[in-house]
């Protein structure tokens, strides 16, 4: 009985997949919660403030307090709302945002699934997420949400096109739509796509910011004009879902950008032997984190905080030492470490833009999208295709010019 159960667990294809999904989902939920904390902190520092400081040391428990508050709040449904759609809309947003992670390779050996149309799947599903915004604005039966979702629809139509075309440049180089394959190609070429396709990277970044409704493209929820935009009428748990979806979308865009342009889980300059010491970066990073926690944590005036943070710092240092002396463990975390580091750079950049740029006016948004982004993306495709054709007809192999 136990024998067959064990065998079932070991062999059934759904078991491992479920475990992976659970890991990814839980880690992402935590990441998103602390992304909000990070956003509040970074924005505060840019505005020479301190940000959340009251809940836990340096406000570290703030996301938990916020989560509890949102869950316990009253769930209000406006009188004239289309109830079914109103309830459904935030769920669509969240599901679409999380589904994308099923095809993102976090490391060479850790991804939920690898389908051969990966990037197509991502584009399709993340476009579905817009339905959540549009339907939510419509179902609220209120002016501000309707205007917000109207803007969102227009913005999405404009920037999805440019973003999609920017990706085509990468696909021309990679010969594949599979996310894993795209990273492998960058490994074979020995150079990241950003160096081959800088313009496509820029366009994708702008389109990504626009797609996640972040500054300077946050017209759908421009608070000075539309109160809160499409989620004005939402409260409590349903508002939390929209919140979750928005920040998850940020992570999604960061993950896609890292995979397509920055070599996914690859170490920087993997082909340069002289930089092999970078393989020890995970251990160094952990050591640095431990030192940082120790320096700040032991300065605390509350004994409990000193204890917990001191223990955390000690764990970090022990793990770092473990990684340094055990090459197998170091190899195992290598991919995840680099992927996460690159992703964090993007997430920081998202917050950085929000702290810096003023919002575009609606007509400016449209002009940037249609007059600059889309023509540039088209030109990029044409030039890339032409160069590739020319090189392949001269050098025989289509990728000979890259040494691949």
């Amino acid at each position: 009985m136990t024998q067959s159960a064990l065998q079932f667990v070991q062999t059934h294809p759904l078991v491992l997949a479920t475990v992976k999904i659970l890991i990814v989902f839980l880690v992402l939920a935590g990441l998103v919660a602390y992304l909000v904390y990070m956003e509040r902190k970074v924005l505060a520092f840019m505005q020479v403030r301190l940000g959340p400081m009251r809940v836990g040391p340096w406000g570290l428990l703030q996301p938990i307090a916020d989560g509890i508050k949102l869950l316990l709040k009253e769930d209000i449904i406006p009188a004239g709302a289309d109830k079914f759609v109103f309830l459904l809309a935030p769920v669509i947003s969240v599901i679409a945002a999380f589904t994308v992670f099923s095809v993102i390779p976090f490391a060479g050996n850790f991804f939920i699934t690898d389908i051969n149309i990966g990037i197509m799947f991502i584009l399709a599903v993340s476009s579905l997420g817009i339905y959540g915004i549009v339907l939510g604005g419509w179902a609220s039966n209120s002016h501000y949400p309707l205007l917000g979702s109207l803007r969102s629809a227009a913005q999405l139509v404009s920037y999805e096109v440019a973003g999609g075309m920017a990706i085509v440049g990468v696909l021309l180089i990679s010969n594949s739509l599979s996310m894993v394959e795209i990273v492998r190609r960058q490994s074979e070429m020995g150079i990241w796509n950003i160096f081959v396709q800088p313009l496509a990277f820029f366009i994708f970044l702008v389109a990504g910011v626009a797609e996640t409704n972040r500054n300077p493209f946050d017209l759908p929820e421009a608070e000075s004009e539309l109160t809160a935009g499409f989620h004005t009428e939402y409260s409590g748990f349903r508002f939390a879902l929209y919140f979750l979806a928005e920040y998850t979308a940020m992570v999604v865009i960061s993950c896609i950008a890292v995979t397509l342009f920055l070599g996914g889980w690859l170490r920087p300059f993997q082909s340069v032997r002289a930089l092999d010491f970078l393989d020890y970066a995970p251990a160094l990073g952990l050591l640095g984190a431990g030192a940082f926690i120790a320096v700040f944590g032991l300065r605390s005036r509350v004994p409990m905080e000193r204890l917990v943070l001191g223990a955390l710092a000690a764990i970090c240092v022990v793990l770092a030492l473990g990684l340094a002396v055990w090459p197998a463990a170091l190899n195992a975390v290598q991919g995840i470490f680099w992927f996460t580091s690159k992703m964090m750079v993007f997430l920081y950049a998202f917050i950085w833009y929000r702290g810096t740029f003023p919002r575009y006016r609606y007509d400016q948004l449209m002009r940037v999208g249609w007059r600059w982004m889309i023509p540039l993306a088209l030109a990029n495709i044409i030039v890339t295709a032409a160069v590739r054709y020319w090189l392949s007809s001269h050098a025989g192999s289509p990728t000979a010019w890259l040494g691949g």
Partner: protein
Amino acid sequence: MQARPRPGSVDNEMGFTELLRRIFLIDLLEGLRLTFSYQRPEAIYTEQYPLERPSVAERYRGAPRLNNNPETGETLCIACNLCSLACPENLIVVAWERTEDRKKKLTTFTYDLSRCMFCGLCEDACPVDALELTQDFELAHYNRQDMIWDRQKLEEGPQPTRYTR
């Protein structure tokens, strides 16, 4: 009539450097550099009020205090009533009794903080520096009654909650 330039249209007289600035988004990058530089810890302007209290100016006139003789612990007030007479709001009430040697001895001293405008005339009138307006500024109370300070409260001064975090 001269036609106004279309808003947002690229000016024909735009110089080459201006064109380059626009193409490479120099202004946006400068903005990013500026906000990035503000993240220095020493740039933070916030004062975490209940945790760290501001030091107010030396001449700041805040909560009144009735001083005691630091050696004997007895009040410095000689119950001369000059502060009460000096007060434009008439909010100080001094009461005293005569001892056997005809000396005045202070019995009660009340100070109605709710009417005080912190002009400092009482402080100036005091011949023995017994009454003093201090630099304590936390004067909020839950009801009006608490704002009438008796002799004990005046000698102790306000006792705001101290926070460790």
